[in-house]
């Protein structure tokens, strides 16, 4: 625990942005952008982007962003080069958490008591911050290049995808000790990984791992036992090329971002392919290098683009259900 004695050089800059918005589309026009297109029933609606909300300049602040987490008040926490950005969309304000301790923050997760866990692939550790941006500790032991993070409050666990070590590592949420690991490097074998990048948990505590280098999603139960996998390499719907971010909505639908297809594919909780949206380009529903994804408690979907934007979408629940 000596690492806690590090004095962090942190900096919080609160920036109040002038509301010089560069909205090209009116709010009504935006609400009309939906997928899939008629005659299919609409399921995803475009809700805007950070560029539209904060102006084009947000791209220079969002310097190669990757991961995203949303707190219970709807505040966005986004990892970016050498900093974490926290956006308040309602008041159109943002704050910056940065310091010498941070190099390439990638994964990000929030615990219910307000701790912020940031995986720093550059310094091979997890940085732990208080909600107001104070560095309070590290998880360092046994990490090579940590990426995706997920928190299980019930079991008191932090799951970390160690991309370079090809392994999932589980730490205690209370004392940050390494509890257990899942898998090791393997090419195609069940339960093994080749560059696992992003992870998420469902309501039952099952772990979903984006096994990027094996072009599939693997699912484990809370004991760490392999349950099932889906996806394969290819260029057809349901296949993966460079799968990255993963998130689940309130109905358990699975959203997987693919950097090479530049889209988001959606599967149901039985891993059946539902549909996809997005393609390469500029504008609503177009992506450059999409990476992280998050879905909040209201089924609002946030997709991070490493080329400097975050797009917002709304999952339209089936009214008949």
């Amino acid at each position, binding site marked *: 625990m000596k690492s806690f004695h590090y004095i962090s050089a942190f900096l919080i800059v609160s920036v109040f942005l002038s509301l010089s918005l560069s909205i090209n589309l009116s709010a009504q026009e935006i609400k009309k952008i939906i997928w899939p297109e008629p005659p299919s029933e609409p399921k995803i609606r475009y809700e805007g982007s950070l560029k539209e909300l904060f102006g084009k300049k947000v791209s220079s602040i969002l310097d190669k962003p990757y991961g995203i987490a949303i707190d219970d008040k709807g505040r966005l926490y986004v990892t970016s080069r050498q900093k974490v950005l926290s956006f308040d969309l309602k008041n159109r304000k943002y704050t910056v958490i940065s310091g010498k301790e941070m190099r390439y923050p990638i994964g990000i997760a929030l615990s219910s008591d307000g701790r912020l866990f940031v995986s720093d692939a550059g310094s091979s550790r997890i940085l732990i911050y208080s909600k107001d941006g104070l560095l309070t500790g590290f998880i360092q032991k046994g990490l090579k290049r940590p990426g995706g993070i997920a928190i299980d409050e019930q079991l008191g666990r932090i799951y970390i995808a160690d991309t370079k070590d090809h392994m999932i590592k589980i730490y205690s949420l209370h004392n940050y000790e390494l509890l257990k690991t899942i898998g090791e490097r393997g090419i195609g074998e069940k339960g093994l990984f080749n560059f696992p990048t992003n992870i998420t948990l469902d309501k039952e505590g099952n772990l979903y791992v984006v096994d990027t280098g094996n072009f599939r999603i693997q699912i484990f139960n809370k004991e760490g036992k392999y349950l099932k996998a889906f996806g394969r390499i*290819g*260029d057809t*719907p349901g*296949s993966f090329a460079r799968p990255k971010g993963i998130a689940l909505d309130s109905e358990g639908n699975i959203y997987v971002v693919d950097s090479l297809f530049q889209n988001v594919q959606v599967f149901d909780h039985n891993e059946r392919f539902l549909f996809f949206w997005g393609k390469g*380009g500029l504008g609503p529903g177009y992506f450059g290098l999409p990476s992280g994804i998050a879905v909040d408690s209201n089924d609002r979907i946030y997709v991070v683009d490493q080329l400097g934007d975050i797009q917002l979408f709304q999952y339209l629940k089936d009214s008949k259900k």
Partner: protein
Amino acid sequence: MIKIISIIISLFFMCIPLYAGIISSPHDMTGGEGKAYTPDSTMVCTFCHIPHGGASAIALWYKDKGEEKFSILAWNKEEGLSSRILMCLSCHDGMIGTDIDIVSEGLEGYIKDHPVNKPFQTGKAGLEKSVIIEEKGVLRDGKVECGSCHNPHSPENKSFLSKPLNEVCITCHSKITSGRHIMGSFGLGDDHPVENKTNPLRPEEKMSCASCHNPHISNLLPVRKNEICNLCHNRIDTRP
């Protein structure tokens, strides 16, 4: 039909030397086993050269059949980063591979300072005339791209460079060897060593252009211009 078969066969033989270079290199994403995971393929190539096919799943949310195939990096080249650059960046995202500094201006984006994806500017930094550079075949669509310096299939040079390090720089910056640069020593005495001598900061390396310059950071120098000398020549105290 015969034509198609002959193309496939010639492509196969063309790929063998490239494939052989990748195995066990950092670009072998199978960890040296030489097999990328797919039920139909045992090649390492598929990590970047995503194969076509795979049974197309029926989209349950579509009334009609929906699209049957995705395009990989469908991109309007004139608008921004080319699909060739994005292919590199899809792994060099800071997580799977080492990070590459990109300026996030969306599709208008470019890679910091070393003018990747920017219109080529002649006359700066000892650059050769653009016509000559164009002839050397390093530009892609008239611009500098990852592939201008790097060859992802060639692990024999440091950092997958297409040629030994100094040669890569001098391909475009050829006038640096004779102009007013420390390498040309301002016409006073010997040139600054850029090869054969050991780098005092990294004894395992020889001196090269990269000892002073980092082509992937803005302004290309790791410290301020006047401080770069002091990194090695630290006996000279420049403090007032």
